[in-house]
């Protein structure tokens, strides 16, 4: 009788379900779980914000307090890992954490605040202090001065260099 054989085969295999909420469960090495921003590494460049398909990552400049906020809202996250791929500083990573239920909506946010950098010529904020530092460090000596200017001022200042270059 086939129907009995099926049940016997089942009995041979024994219980397979887990006692999950009462006992922890194994997750694989590369599980794509909750993304976390390392506030020490983040420079506020916004690469992750551009890459994020569902707008879980957003960026807001607050001129009043002179701060840039990178806001991560887990409620919208689809765990695709595009942000991790895009981040030039390895500041945002997907962890293996997957138990993300929260009692308050606020618990689903992570906000990183970074000081805005103002252009020394026009005084307009255009990037963060940390990012400009890293850019300057990475550049050769002679290009550093231009890099500290906002794009518009840089254009007017470096216009004559470029006119040379064209020739």
């Amino acid at each position, binding site marked *: 009788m086939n*129907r*009995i054989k*099926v*049940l016997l085969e*089942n*009995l041979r*295999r*024994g*219980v*397979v*379900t887990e*006692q999950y909420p009462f006992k922890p469960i194994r997750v694989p090495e590369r599980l794509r779980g909750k993304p976390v921003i390392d506030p020490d590494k983040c420079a506020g460049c916004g690469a992750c914000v551009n890459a994020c398909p569902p707008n879980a990552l957003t960026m807001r400049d607050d001129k009043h307090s002179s701060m840039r906020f990178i806001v991560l809202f887990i409620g919208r996250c689809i765990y695709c890992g595009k942000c991790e791929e895009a981040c030039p500083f390895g500041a945002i990573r997907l962890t293996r954490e997957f138990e993300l239920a929260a009692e308050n909506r606020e618990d689903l946010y992570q906000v990183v605040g970074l000081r805005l950098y103002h252009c020394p010529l026009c005084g307009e904020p255009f990037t963060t202090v940390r990012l400009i530092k890293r850019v300057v460090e990475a550049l050769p000596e002679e290009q550093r001065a231009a890099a500290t200017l906002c794009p518009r001022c840089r254009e007017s200042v470096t216009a004559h260099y470029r006119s040379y270059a064209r020739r």
Partner: protein
Amino acid sequence: MVWLNTLYGVLNACFILLVGPLIDGVERKIRARLQNRRGPSILQTWYDLVKLLRKPAARTGVPSTLFRLSVYIGFVNLLIVSLFIPSILCGGMGFFGDLILFIYLLSSSKVFVLIGSYSSGSPYASIGSTREVSLSMASELVLAEIIALIALSRSSLLLSNVFPVTAVLRPSVLIGLGVLGIIVYIEHSRLPFEIGEAEPELAGGYTIEYAGRDLGFILWSNTIRRTLLTTFLIDLIIPLDVLYHLVIYPVLLFSIMIVFTAIETGWGRLRIDISLKYVKRLSYVMWGVILLALIGY
């Protein structure tokens, strides 16, 4: 002695009321293990019942009196049966009840719920109860044949006289008991004959319009009905003896239920037309058995 019999009856009824849902809990555990699952606690059916019984019964529209009362009439019917059927204690209300009353109360308890459900007007409820009624009509015919056989064998319709039927060991009685086992299984509405509720097809069928306390009583009644039917089968087999009933009866009760569960786990659901065919075949078998009894075997 009347008061002692009354006490026995009350104790028996309490036993049936308590043990019905417990058996269901055990069955759920067994079924889970046969499907590689851990399964819920064996008290789970009781937890469900307690929760349901504490909830108000939400009824849609303007429910008819029939709809509201039928569940409770059915429950009381079963309660009466459990008073006079010997279960854990060998005794009862002096066995004034006879076989016909037993069958009448048991089946009417179901019919009341089905009529009440039908009166709700929900298409699922009406299809579910129609299916259930046609199946139990068919199986009740077989049951009547079995009663006739028992009455023939023991020349009486009094419960106190027919228990246990095994006192006369004839081939016809043995076959009759076998058929009764199958009928009890069908009346339990177990797969493949669980077609009145049919969750994936009818979303609960005849129970669909009931909620809260009403639903709780339906579920409780179902476990009680199952226990009573099995009790009846056991009563026909084991001697009317205090010790037998105190020790052998519960063991048999649980083992029959577990065997039934195991069988059920191996089956899918049959369609109403196919399942009626099966029951019809059983009724033909029973006519043969009655003939056998008439000529003295």
